[in-house]
């Protein structure tokens, strides 16, 4: 398959492969992955455990590097970047939401949201708190900004994680089973939040185990045995 991109394509994988060394030889976590995601698309990645879903997400977010092939996000070939360039690129273009909120306990809720802004430094210092407040308001946590993460419920913490992922207005939100540790009601709230983001042009790539999300998702990419089995 040949990848076709436009000037606005957010994610483009072209024959990306990631192999891991094992005592019995190298094993492909994902192989020959070719995929594009356009702005405003909500793309779900599904598949059995160990099929390669998270590996795909890690390649897109620069958390892992392909053994071969090409990964381009926001018009930038990720494979050519060193670690620091990658960190800066990620801070600018990609927001990551994990299964667990991964909030830093020594920082307040607002500080956690400001963290990517502080690292990137693109937003003026005096505007960061207002931005964080707006983001937290957008996830329904305007009144929690000075609290410690530990004082929030699991669902609230995950919403803070979403707000943090949005801190620098990235082109792509990559979410790795963001509702996997939440009750169904809170999970639905998070999914709707991600869906709403796509209305602003943000692309969302979400790894999930959940079925029955077709109403929310624009596309579902199915991974089986490390390969993209379908993309519909």
């Amino acid at each position, binding site marked *: 398959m040949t990848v076709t991109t436009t000037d606005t394509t957010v994610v483009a994988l072209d024959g990306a492969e990631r192999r891991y060394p094992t005592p019995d030889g190298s094993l492909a976590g994902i192989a020959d992955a070719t995929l594009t995601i356009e702005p405003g698309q909500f793309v779900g990645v599904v598949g059995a455990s160990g099929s390669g879903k998270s590996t795909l997400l890690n390649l897109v*977010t620069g*958390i892992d590097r392909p053994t071969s092939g090409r990964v381009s996000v926001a018009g930038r070939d990720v494979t050519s970047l060193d670690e620091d360039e990658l*960190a800066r690129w990620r801070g600018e273009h990609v927001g990551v939401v994990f299964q667990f909120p991964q909030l830093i*306990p020594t920082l307040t809720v607002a500080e956690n949201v400001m963290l*990517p802004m502080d690292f990137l430094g693109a937003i003026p210092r005096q505007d960061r708190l207002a931005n964080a407040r707006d983001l937290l308001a957008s996830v329904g946590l305007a009144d929690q*900004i000075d609290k410690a993460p530990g004082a929030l419920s699991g669902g609230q913490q995950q919403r803070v994680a979403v707000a943090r992922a949005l801190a620098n207005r990235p082109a792509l939100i990559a979410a790795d089973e963001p509702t996997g540790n939440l009750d169904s009601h809170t999970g639905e709230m998070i999914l709707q939040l991600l869906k709403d983001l796509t209305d602003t042009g943000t692309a969302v790539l979400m790894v999930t185990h959940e079925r029955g999300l077709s109403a929310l998702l624009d596309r579902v990419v199915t991974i089986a045995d490390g390969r993209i089995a379908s993309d519909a």
Partner: protein
Amino acid sequence: MTARTALVKGVLRSNAGRTRLMIAAIAVGVGAVGAILGSHTVIERTIEDSYASTQPADATLTLTGDAVAAEAIARDVTGVTQAEARREVTVRMASAEGWQPLTLIAVADFAAWDIGIAFAESGNWPPQDGEIVLERASLQEVDVAVGDSITAQSPGGEAELSVVGLAHDPGRTPAWMTGQVIGLVSPGTLADIGVGGNLTALALRTAPGFDRDTNSDIADATASALTAEGFTVTHVAVPEPGEHPAAGVMGTLLYLLQAFGVVAFVAAVALVSTLVVAEVKRSTGMIAVMKTGGATSGQVARVYVTALAAVATAGLVFGIGGAMAGTWALSSFAFTLLNLDATSMLAAWWVFPVQAAVALVVPLAAVGLPVRRLSRIPVRESIVTGSTAPARAPRRTVVGPRWGRAVSMGGRNAWRQPGRLVLTGVSLGVGAAAVITALNTGAAWDRIVADEFRAQDFDVQARLTEPIPRESLDASAAREGLARLEYWNTAVATVTGPDGQVGDVAAVLSPPADSTSATFPLVDGRQLSADDDHAVVVSQSLADPELSVGDTLTLEGDDATWTVVGVVRQLSGGLDGTVWVSEPLSSMNPSSATVLRVTGEGEDASLAALERVMEGSDASIEIAGTATDAKQSLDDHLYIITGLLLVMSIGLGAVGLLALVEAMSTAVAERRGEIGLMKSAGAQSRAVIRMVVIEALVVVGLALLAGVALATVLTGVVESAVGAIFTGAALPYTWWWPGVALTALVMTAAAAASSIVPAYEAADMPIREALAQA
């Protein structure tokens, strides 16, 4: 292999690097405590054994006449078990360094020498007529080797002596303290030098177990018996039985070692506790796995206690090896200082249980509570808790911290584990306190040496072989360009204060009333003035604690009562002390002088001018030295003091640094998830590094504050002890801020260095792995 053994191995192998670090830390703690306590026991035992091996005299009587003839009379006195004639006389010798005092010891037959003996060490023994065997420590004072010749000179003549061998006298104050060259010669050699071949002292040994008072009574009875037979006894000296002449120095050295031993123990306990508690806390996840598999709390605890015991045993084995090496190094240093040879370098038996306690009991005690607590955590909680580090809730939101978010986070992280912060701070703070104390003590010494020589205005001091009339050299001194020539009288006398004898052989100096070179720094009272009548100023070593301003005293060889008007600090007088008198003693000839102090156009010029002046005199210079030489001699003491203190301090500093390395490495391991998150949120490597280094710097900063607080006390203790060793009185409390700054600089550099490895580990940590372990 049982499941429990496999689990213990698993605990140890799960992070081999950390296990090795724990072993190293326990070894360093054990080594530091063992080395300091071990050297204490070795030195203490060696001092006792060495001194006893010389069969020291219990009393020495100085006579007029031939003491050989007095031996039989003395042996008949009840309580005297042995009596032996000897002679100890000071002449001068020519050397590359100029004239130096040479103390000669002679006995009738060295082959039958029985009291206060020295041991042949190399070359020929015993010395024949025209030969000299030097006490080995003298070689520190003079550049002479076996096979060379030296010129010994007295007012009565001079002789060329062949240096034929070296001997060791462990019962004598080390040469570097007295500045005297010591040699063993035959009575015939004494006669050749012109001081007469008679032996004029009688050394006595009394029955074992007698105390000083009893020995004193026996010495008095012997003196009476000799007087009855026509001898004149001019001086009786009765030392404390079994006490080395330099016992004060040695005792204080041992005291210092004890003090540092306690400090090292505290530091080691803190270090080991830090390690152990951190290791157990890190294992929460594994505990969950064990409990899921059906392990009871007791079984979980036993796994960790067994693993810890294995680590502690390994640390103990390595630590004992290090302690033995450290004991050898510290003891060797002390023996060089004290001119002693070790009888054995093996520490006392009780040092080993103490080391075992540091290695085994302390970690097990420290681990008890956390293991008990963690082993009782419910399974679900263990799983959820994972290996993340606890944190206190932040108090408020800080927007765009001025130094960056990573710096701000580093600062906050330092406080996340208060217990670990305290233990690391104690380990590091103790090391800092020791280093600051060492530098303060060096500065105190430097300061009082500078004060002493700033107060004295002279180029050269010379002791003459015989008295010369005062003012007899004024005309020739003026011709030779000497601006000032002071005539001093000197004597050596016992000093008796209101509560009894306070000085055995204090130097009594009678300077001219208008002297400009006798003003030592005042500690109390005032200096002598021209209109004083029987007033004295005493050095601090005599005054402390027996004499104070207003007290009266008497001086041997003088019937008058003298009033103390001032106390001064004097380093150059040594431990015996000095008394400055307002007028000559009745035993002194007021119109003559035995010491000259001259000031001219620089020290070398003044010394040369004085030699020329003395060519026209009947007397000659016995010993002459410049003010710089005297200052240099005191500065040499400084290197010894600071050297010893710094060696011990650096050992303690190493313990503290290991604690810091461990704390930082643990902190990074605990926060792998957070670091992964930071990187996923756009943090570059330098931000992560900065965060870790800042955390280390905060810990170091707090430790430095603790160290400074501890050093304020430790400085007082050590400066008092060092002052007592070398001057007989406490050094003035001195706090040297540049030393604190230097310590802070070194600690900051060490913090950066010790955190850099964990910091880079954190920065290089792949996000995927970091998050997987969160």
